[in-house]
């Protein structure tokens, strides 16, 4: 479909991803105030200006290092299914905890929008968030919203629109590690790039391999075999 884009919602448990999903799509995916509620992927669509967006609600996780099935589902979607935009939903009232996942996503993929939800709750608690400073530091657009009260939606949709149409470009900040790790990344990164091309961040993959992420390696092999089969059958 032309002018159709896939937007994945990622974030910690209980940050309002499903509330945002429902508010955008008009669907009634079950929302609830407990962790681990979204176990499979829910999909819905929203139209804005001349474009159609397919919204995918990923399971809420604190991390994307495949410690559990939900994390694996979310990670595989972001890395292998490559949504046009990954919307990282953060809880404005506990940014410190939430930014961990945001930084992980920024390492994995380029087109990211950080969406700070529950902004009205935060303001009630006297928390003021300067989204312009955050945008500058993270290298991706940061938008403040309240999914429950539909605050900030025009800004969010416009930001998505400008990102997919190429009016704005993301330059996600990359975490710098110790000298030893950085050296090892440099050693294997070019080799990784020659194997997987530019479809997956070679820096991220290098880090995962250095961390000994065998589950990811297995996932890779599985997908390579599948691709081969598809090619042979074609």
């Amino acid at each position, binding site marked *: 479909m032309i002018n159709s884009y896939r937007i994945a919602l990622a974030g910690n448990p209980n940050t309002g991803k499903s509330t945002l999903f429902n508010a955008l799509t008009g669907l009634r995916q079950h929302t609830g105030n407990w962790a681990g509620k979204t176990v499979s992927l829910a999909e819905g669509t929203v139209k804005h200006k001349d474009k159609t967006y397919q919204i995918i609600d990923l399971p809420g996780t*604190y*991390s994307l*290092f495949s*410690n559990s099935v939900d994390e694996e589902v979310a990670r595989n979607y972001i890395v292998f299914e490559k949504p046009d935009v990954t919307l990282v939903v953060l809880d404005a*009232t*506990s940014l*410190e*905890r939430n930014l*961990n996942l945001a930084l992980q996503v920024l390492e994995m993929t380029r087109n990211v929008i950080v969406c700070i939800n529950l902004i009205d709750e935060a303001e009630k608690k006297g928390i003021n968030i300067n989204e312009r400073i955050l945008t500058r530091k993270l290298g991706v657009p940061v938008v403040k919203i309240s999914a429950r009260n539909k605050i900030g939606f025009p800004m969010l949709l416009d930001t998505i629109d400008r990102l997919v149409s190429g009016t704005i470009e993301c330059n996600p900040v990359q975490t710098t590690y110790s000298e030893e790790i950085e050296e090892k990344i440099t050693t294997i990164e070019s080799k990784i790039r020659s194997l997987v091309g530019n479809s997956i961040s070679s820096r991220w993959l290098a880090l995962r391999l250095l961390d000994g992420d065998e589950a990811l390696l297995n996932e890779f092999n599985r997908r390579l075999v599948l691709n081969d089969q598809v090619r042979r059958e074609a």
Partner: protein
Amino acid sequence: MVKSNKISLFQGKKGNLIKISSISLEGVMRRRLLDLGFVPGAIVEVIKKSPLGDPIAFRVSQTTIALRKEESMKIEGELVNHD
């Protein structure tokens, strides 16, 4: 006078604030704890202990998380004074 006040999270008393200095765990459990906010430099509060002293609930980056003795013994830090 410098006095060493290094303790494990398990040794903390209710109400203690402990600044984490090291996590002697490996693999998935280490990763998980880091994701939950048990990172070096973070200040953790001992909220309460279960009747038998294990598990213990800690306050870490604005959330309460309970840890078993197996894990809390392996996280070390320094006592921080309340002020």
